[in-house]
C-alpha cells in the first residue's frame, strides 16, 4: 500500500469514529448542549480536557520550539501545565458549585452587572476566536502534507467533520469525540518517541531516555547534544538564561492564561460533583503530562538526529568536532524525508558557497575558516514532530498515525473553542441580554446556529489568516490572563470586590496588555504600525510583549481592589452567593442566616 493510501486509511478511520460518536451522542436539551448533561465521569472528563487543551500548538509546534530553544523554551512545558494547579485550587471546584453553563454567566451574577457579563463575553470571543484560527490553519497544514490536497480543501473537510459532531452533539458530542481524539493523539505522539528513544539511548521510555546515555557515543544524551550544537555555533542546549525576569513572567502569563481560558473552564461544568471537579483536574494533568513529559525528549532527540543526519561524523564518539563539521553530506545525497518536506517549502536549501554540501549551522556564527559562507539549510520548527517518523525510518503506518494524531489535536481544540464561542452568544448574549424570554428549544436552536456561524468564520479566517497567525496564541493567553482569570479568582476569594471594581479591573488589565502588545507588534497587528521594534533592547525592563499578560493580571487585581475599596460593599445576597460557592454542600443551602 502506498504511503498516501495508508494516510487516507488512518485519517478516514478516525473521522468515521468521530462521526459515529456524534450520531450516538446527539444533544436533546440545552443542558446536554452546554454541559453534556452534567454527568461526565472525572476520568473521562480528564481525558476530554487533555484533548480540549492539547492543540496543534502542543502536538505539532511545542517540541520544535523546545528543540530550537533548549532550556530557554522550557517555559512552554511549565506554563501550559502549571496553569492546571491554579485551575484545580482556585477556580474549577467553585465554578462547578456555582452550577451554571458559561464563564460570563458567573461574572455577570457575581458582579451583579450585565456590563461585566458583556465585557467577559467580548474577552471570551476575542481570545477563543484568535485561538481557533491557529487550529484551523494547523489542520490545513496537516491535510496538505499528508493527504495531498491543498490547505483550503483540507480546511473545508475538517470544518465539515467538526460541524457534524459539534452542531449535532454540542458539549455531549464534543466530550466523547475528545476522549477518542485524546487516545488517537497520545498514541500517535508516543509511538515514534518510543522508537527514537530506543534507537538513541536504548531506553524505551522517552522521559528517561532524555537523561540517559547516548548509545552511539557513550556520553549522556544532553552532553552529547550540547557538544554537537556548540560545535556548529549554537548556544548550548542546556544553557542558562540571563533574562530571568522575562522567563518568570512569560511562564506566569502562560499559567494564568491557561487557567483563564473559557473553553477549558467549561469542561469542569460537566462533572456531577465539586469533588469530581477537583479529581478531573488531576486526571487532566496526568493525561496532558504523558505528552508533556514526552515532548522534551522528542525535542532533544530529534535535534540530535537532525544534526547527525547532516554531519554523519558527529554521530559516534568524536575526537575533533572541527573535522567532523567539515564532512557534511552532499545535497544530492540528502535523505528522502528532506526531499518530501522541501516540496512543502518548510525545508529550504541554498548552496551559498557552491560546494555541493549542506552547511547547517548558526547563521550568526563566524566559520569562514571552514569555508562556510552562511547557513544553507532552513528547517521550520513545526515539521519536527510530523517528520519524526521519517527521520527515524519508522514504518509507514506510523506516519499515517501521526497524520491522524495531528488532526485530532487540532480538531478537538477547535471544537472546544467553538463551543465556548457559541454558548457565549446563545446563552450570554441572546438569552442573557437580547431575548431573556427565549424558550429552551429556541435557545438550543440559537446555540446550533451560532455554532454554525462560528465554524464558517473560523474556517474562513483559517484559510485567509489575517497576517498575524503567529501572534494569535500569545494574544489569546494575554487576554485570558489579564482579563478573565483575575476577576474569576476575586469573585470567589473576595466578598469585597464589587461590580465597579470588576469592570474597572478587567478593562484596565485588558487595555494595558493590548496596548503593550500593539506597541511592539503593530496596532491591531497591522504590519508597520508598531511604535517600537520588537527587540529585547526596546522592551520595558526586558519584558517581552508575550510575557506582559502576567503584568496585566497584576494591574487587574490592583485596580479591582482599589476601586472596590473606595466604593460600596456588594449587596448582602451577593456575599451569600460567594459563600454558597465556597462550600460544596447543597444548592446554596450551606449558609444559614
Amino acid at each position, binding site marked *: 500500500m502506498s504511503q498516501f493510501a495508508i494516510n487516507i486509511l488512518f485519517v478516514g478511520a478516525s473521522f468515521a469514529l468521530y462521526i459515529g460518536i456524534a450520531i450516538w451522542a446527539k444533544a436533546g436539551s440545552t443542558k446536554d448542549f452546554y454541559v453534556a448533561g452534567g454527568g461526565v465521569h472525572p476520568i473521562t472528563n480528564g481525558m476530554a480536557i487533555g484533548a480540549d487543551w492539547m492543540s496543534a500548538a502542543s502536538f505539532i509546534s511545542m517540541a520544535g520550539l523546545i528543540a530550537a530553544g533548549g532550556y530557554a523554551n522550557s517555559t512552554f512545558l511549565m506554563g501550559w501545565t502549571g496553569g492546571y494547579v491554579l485551575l484545580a485550587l482556585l477556580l474549577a471546584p467553585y465554578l462547578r458549585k456555582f452550577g451554571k453553563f458559561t464563564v460570563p454567566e458567573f461574572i455577570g451574577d457575581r458582579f451583579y452587572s450585565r456590563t461585566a457579563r458583556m465585557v467577559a463575553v467580548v474577552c471570551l470571543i476575542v481570545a477563543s476566536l484568535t485561538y481557533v484560527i491557529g487550529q484551523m490553519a494547523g489542520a490545513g497544514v496537516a491535510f496538505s502534507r499528508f493527504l495531498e490536497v491543498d490547505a483550503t480543501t483540507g480546511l473545508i473537510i475538517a470544518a465539515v467533520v467538526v460541524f457534524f459532531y459539534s452542531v449535532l452533539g454540542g458539549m455531549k458530542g464534543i466530550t466523547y469525540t475528545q476522549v477518542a481524539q485524546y487516545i488517537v493523539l497520545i498514541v500517535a505522539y508516543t509511538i515514534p518517541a518510543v522508537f527514537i528513544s530506543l534507537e538513541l539511548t536504548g531506553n524505551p521510555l522517552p522521559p528517561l531516555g532524555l537523561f540517559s*546515555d547516548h548509545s552511539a557515543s557513550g556520553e549522556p544524551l544532553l552532553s552529547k547534544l550540547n557538544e554537537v550544537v556548540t560545535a556548529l555555533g549554537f548556544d548550548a542546549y*542546556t544553557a*542558562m538564561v540571563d533574562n530571568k525576569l522575562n522567563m518568570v513572567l512569560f511562564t506566569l502569563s502562560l499559567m494564568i492564561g491557561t487557567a483563564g481560558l473559557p473553553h477549558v473552564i467549561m469542561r469542569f461544568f460537566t462533572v456531577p460533583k465539586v469533588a469530581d471537579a477537583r479529581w478531573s483536574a488531576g486526571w487532566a494533568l496526568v493525561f496532558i503530562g504523558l505528552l508533556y513529559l514526552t515532548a522534551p525528549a522528542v525535542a532533544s532527540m530529534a535535534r540530535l538526529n537532525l544534526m547527525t543526519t547532516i554531519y554523519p561524523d558527529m554521530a559516534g564518539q568524536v575526537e575533533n568536532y572541527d573535522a567532523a563539521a567539515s564532512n557534511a553530506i552532499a545535497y544530492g545525497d540528502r535523505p528522502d524525508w528532506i526531499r518530501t518536506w522541501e516540496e512543502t517549502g518548510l525545508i529550504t536549501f541554498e548552496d551559498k558557497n557552491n560546494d555541493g554540501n549542506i552547511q547547517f549551522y548558526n547563521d550568526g556564527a563566524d566559520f569562514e575558516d571552514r569555508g562556510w559562507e552562511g547557513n544553507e539549510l532552513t528547517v521550520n520548527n513545526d515539521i519536527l514532530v510530523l517528520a519524526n517518523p521519517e527521520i527515524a525510518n519508522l514504518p509507514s503506518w506510523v506516519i499515517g498515525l501521526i497524520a491522524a494524531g495531528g488532526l485530532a489535536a487540532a480538531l478537538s481544540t477547535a471544537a472546544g473553542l467553538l463551543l465556548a464561542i457559541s454558548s457565549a452568544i446563545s446563552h450570554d448574549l441572546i438569552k442573557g441580554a437580547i431575548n431573556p424570554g427565549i424558550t429552551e428549544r429556541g435557545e438550543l436552536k440559537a446555540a446550533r446556529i451560532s455554532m454554525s456561524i462560528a465554524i464558517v468564520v473560523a474556517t474562513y479566517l483559517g484559510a485567509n489568516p489575517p497576517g498575524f497567525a503567529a501572534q494569535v496564541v500569545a494574544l489569546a493567553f494575554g487576554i485570558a490572563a489579564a482579563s478573565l482569570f483575575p476577576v474569576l479568582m476575586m469573585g470567589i476569594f473576595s466578598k469585597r470586590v464589587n461590580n465597579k471594581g470588576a469592570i474597572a479591573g478587567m478593562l484596565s488589565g485588558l487595555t494595558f496588555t493590548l496596548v503593550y502588545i500593539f506597541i511592539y507588534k503593530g496596532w491591531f497587528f497591522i504590519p508597520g504600525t508598531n511604535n517600537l521594534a520588537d527587540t529585547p533592547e526596546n522592551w520595558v525592563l526586558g519584558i517581552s510583549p508575550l510575557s506582559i499578560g502576567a503584568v496585566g493580571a497584576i494591574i487587574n487585581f490592583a485596580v479591582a481592589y482599589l476601586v472596590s475599596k473606595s466604593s460600596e460593599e456588594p449587596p448582602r445576597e451577593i456575599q451569600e452567593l460567594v459563600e454558597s460557592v465556597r462550600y460544596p454542600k447543597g444548592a446554596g443551602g450551606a449558609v444559614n442566616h
Partner: protein
Amino acid sequence: MADEKSNAEAYWKANVRLITGCLIVWALVSYGCAILLRPLLSSIPVGGTDLGFWFAQQGSILAFIGLIFFYAWKMNRLDKQYGLEE
C-alpha cells in the same frame, strides 16, 4: 446559626491555608528550582545536565500532578470533616 457559620468559616480558613501551602510548593518547583535557583543547583548533576534543567523539563510537571491529587484528597477529607460534602 452561629455554630454552622463558624464551622463554615473554619472550613474556609483551612482551605485557604491548604491552598497557600500548595501554591508555595507550586512556585518553588517552577519559578524557584527551574528558573531563579537554577544557578545554585547547578552543582547537582542529573543525566548530563543539572537539577534545575530537570525541574524545568520534568520535575515541575510531576510536582504539579502530585500537588493537584494531594489537594483533591485533602479537600475531600476536609469536606467530610466539616460536614460540608455534597
